[in-house]
């Protein structure tokens, strides 16, 4: 029987929901399963309601499911809120001694004296999480040893590790003896080695692999964990992460570092990006390569700080006054986030412009299993560089007008060439000018870079039959959900395929025009309120999509939601 099984852990902020969820995911990842896990949390540190969903599958999964097979409910709200999602044979694990008088139709209630067991068997009331974890694994007859090694990896071999394994065992045994294995069995598969990581971790790794040596940022959900990861690795990986006073400083520091010759980036979310807009233009006119990560969340303004949205597309395409080139990328999956990021640094330097990576809270904080990354596939292309040795440094002009629009870069202080640039319009040397001719030449030179950059843009990813009556079009983090929705619909004999973009600007107009014009019905699937990609498609191809499946409540799409919506549109 194929495995596609869903756990959920629910509780208040501060109860360790994240930790239980992560360990669950880890233990199945170690067992060779594919994992997709997402996090739903409020903008508070204690209390409220958080949950963590772990989807365990023996095939590749890139999206979350709505159904829940096993719910670990650390509080009463978790039961009340999520019972409707329980499958009929689902199990709700909770501490009946703490949460009294629970009832309901969906899912059978499996009350376990979590706290008591934690105290008795592990000598620590706070171990209830681990007891629940053991219980959950027991409810699918999973291998307890697998959990033990994960716990030891996490908590060490000392007392804490021991107490955790004891707690896990207590939960495991309790369920076994209570229910006598009267459950479905999920066994570890052959031990395929996969990594389990979040979108933000993938981006950070991509940046480091690409040789990013400088990051400056200001904390903002969901981008903060990138700065935190970079900071944590700064010593070992020889890089610098500056926690700046604000986002304006952050982007300007990164620009300074990039001008001086190191690969540099910043990361933020909508509100912070607003403050970086002037810096984007600074990078544009000084032709300084920088990478900007925009972790989208619902706007406008502070909006829903810990939720997801894809509402920044039109903003990042046009952020800043005047006309100059930029690139906009949007990773489709967690693995893609790694590759897109390495690519971003190359494009930034080859074309000497700002590259914006649009990710979102959903991609940023979801976990997925990823096959080992082949680092030998990472290419580093620093673009055209001026060399003192080959050319006369006294002739160097930072903004030389060339056919391609690309002027070789030199780095200040590394040679004798003086590297001069200016956020005023400048002449070829970089000095400020008001001359109409020089101005025109520089504008054209900068825009010419788009011509070759356009050639780099890959064809959007297609999935499903070449020809179909319905084409679902998406971008960025919705890839997994749309992909799976196609499967669901095709199983129901619909003629559906998918077109998905992870490179948004320069826009692959031809491929999209082709797809939209050929489909009888084309629907954009977007996590925003107006269909920003649909608007972009219209602007770039003239085509109207036939429908927009939009969601802007801050929650991610599920495959089932999309499939349902497509069917509704069809009616």
């Amino acid at each position, binding site marked *: 029987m194929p495995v596609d099984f869903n756990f959920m852990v629910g509780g208040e902020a501060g109860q360790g929901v994240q930790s239980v969820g992560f360990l669950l995911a880890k233990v199945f990842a170690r067992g060779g399963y594919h994992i997709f896990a997402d996090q739903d949390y409020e903008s508070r540190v204690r209390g409220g309601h958080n949950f963590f969903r772990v989807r365990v599958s023996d095939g590749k999964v890139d999206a979350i499911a709505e159904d829940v097979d096993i719910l670990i409910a650390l509080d009463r709200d978790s039961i009340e809120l999520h019972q409707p999602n329980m499958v009929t044979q689902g199990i709700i694990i909770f501490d009946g001694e703490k949460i009294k008088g629970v009832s309901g139709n969906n899912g059978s209630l499996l009350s376990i004296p979590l706290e008591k067991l934690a105290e008795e068997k592990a000598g620590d009331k706070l171990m209830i999480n681990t007891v629940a974890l053991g219980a959950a694994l027991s409810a699918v007859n999973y291998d307890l040893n697998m959990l033990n090694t994960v716990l030891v990896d996490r908590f060490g071999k000392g007392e804490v590790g021991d107490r955790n394994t004891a707690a896990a065992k207590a939960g495991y045994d309790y369920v076994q003896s209570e229910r006598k294995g009267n459950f479905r069995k999920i066994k570890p598969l052959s031990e395929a080695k996969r990594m389990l990581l979040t979108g933000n971790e993938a981006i950070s790794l991509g940046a*480091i692999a*690409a040789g990013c*040596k400088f990051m400056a940022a200001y904390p903002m959900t969901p981008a903060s964990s990138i700065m935190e990861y970079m900071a944590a690795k700064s010593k070992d990986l020889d890089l610098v992460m500056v926690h700046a006073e604000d986002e*304006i400083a952050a982007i300007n520091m990164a*620009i300074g570092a990039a001008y001086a010759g190191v690969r540099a980036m910043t990361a933020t979310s909508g509100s912070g990006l607003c403050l970086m807009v002037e810096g984007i233009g600074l990078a544009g006119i000084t032709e300084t390569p920088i990478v900007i990560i925009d972790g989208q969340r619902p706007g406008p303004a502070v909006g829903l700080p810990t939720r997801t949205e894809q509402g920044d597309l039109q903003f990042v395409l046009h952020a800043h006054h005047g006309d100059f080139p930029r690139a906009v990328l949007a990773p489709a999956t967690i693995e893609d986030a790694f590759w897109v990021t390495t690519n971003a640094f190359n494009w930034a330097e080859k074309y000497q412009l700002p590259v914006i990576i649009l990710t979102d809270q959903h991609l940023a904080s979801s976990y997925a299993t990823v096959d080992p990354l082949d680092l*030998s596939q990472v290419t580093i292309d620093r673009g055209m560089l001026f060399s003192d040795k080959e050319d006369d440094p006294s002739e160097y002009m930072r903004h030389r007008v060339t056919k391609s629009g690309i002027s070789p870069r030199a780095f*200040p202080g590394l040679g004798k060439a003086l590297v001069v640039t200016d956020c005023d319009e400048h002449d070829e040397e970089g000095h400020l000018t008001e001359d109409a001719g020089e101005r025109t030449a520089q504008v054209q030179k900068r825009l010419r870079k788009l011509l070759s950059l356009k050639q780099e843009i890959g064809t959007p990813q297609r999935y499903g039959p070449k020809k179909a009556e319905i084409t679902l079009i998406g971008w960025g983090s919705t890839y997994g959900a749309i992909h799976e929705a196609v499967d669901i619909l095709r199983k129901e004999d619909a003629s559906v395929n998918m077109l998905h973009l992870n490179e948004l600007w320069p826009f692959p107009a031809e491929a999209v025009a082709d797809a939209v014009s050929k489909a009888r019905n084309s629907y954009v699937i977007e996590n925003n309120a107006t269909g920003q990609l649909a608007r972009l498609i219209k602007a770039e191809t003239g085509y109207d999509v036939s429908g927009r499946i939009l969601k802007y409540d801050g929650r991610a799409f599920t495959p089932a939601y999309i499939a349902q919506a497509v069917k509704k549109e069809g009616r």
Partner: protein
Amino acid sequence: MVTTSDYAGLKPAWCPGCGNFGILNALNRALVEMKIEPHQVLLVSGIGQAGKLPHYTRGNVFNSLHGRPVPPAIGARIANSELIVIAVSGDGDAYGEGGNHFLHAARRNHDITYLVHNNQVYGLTKGQASPTSDVGFVTKTTPYGAASPVNPIALAIVSGASFVARGFAGDIDHLSHLIKKGITHRGFALIDILQPCVSFNHKNTFQWYRERVYNLEDERYDPSDKKAALEKALIWGEEIPIGIIYEEDLPVYEDQLPVLSDGPLVKQKIDSRRVEKLLAEFM
């Protein structure tokens, strides 16, 4: 040998008689006397009359946004710790639009030198009040007179800058001496420079400053005493002290970055394979 002609830049577009000429001369003189070659220097400026200075000398130049010379200067300094990084601002640039960066660069004590051409007015945009305009200064945007000014010297000291000085564009010898000290100093070195604007500031003229400035070196003044420095910082009016007002050896931001001890970041190779060990942590 480095000579003045190495620092001959474009013809200044400043008004004849502007105090900025003195600052330009003092800077060039300092660089020549320190035997620094243009390619070793990075001048990062903002927007304003002061911000044009780098074009009128020679060196690497990053002429940045209004209010933003300090952050790119910091970024560049971290990227290449061998560069001599000098940021250049006007008073509006530094203490108005750029106020927050000023505070925090001082606090983190980044190793850059910061020249602020303080003409107490917005020159390039034609005469509006600046954050340092004297209280009551009437301009087109302050018809009822400017509010009480910021005190850059005091701000820098209480924020944690390790070198805080005031110069005067009318005293090139002294100013060039200060600039040399500032460049030599490790840590954030602010030099706030009294700079007459002959076009828009008819109050704080060369004459006005000349009648007031006195050199702290002429009295037995110890710039390492923070409290004394703060007292000096509060003096403004009949008398205006110039010179090094505060100087201390304080921890420098860049010194705590372990990677910089291996030499400039920009000289370090990119090696993607180093990520291998990180990948293992996710298994």
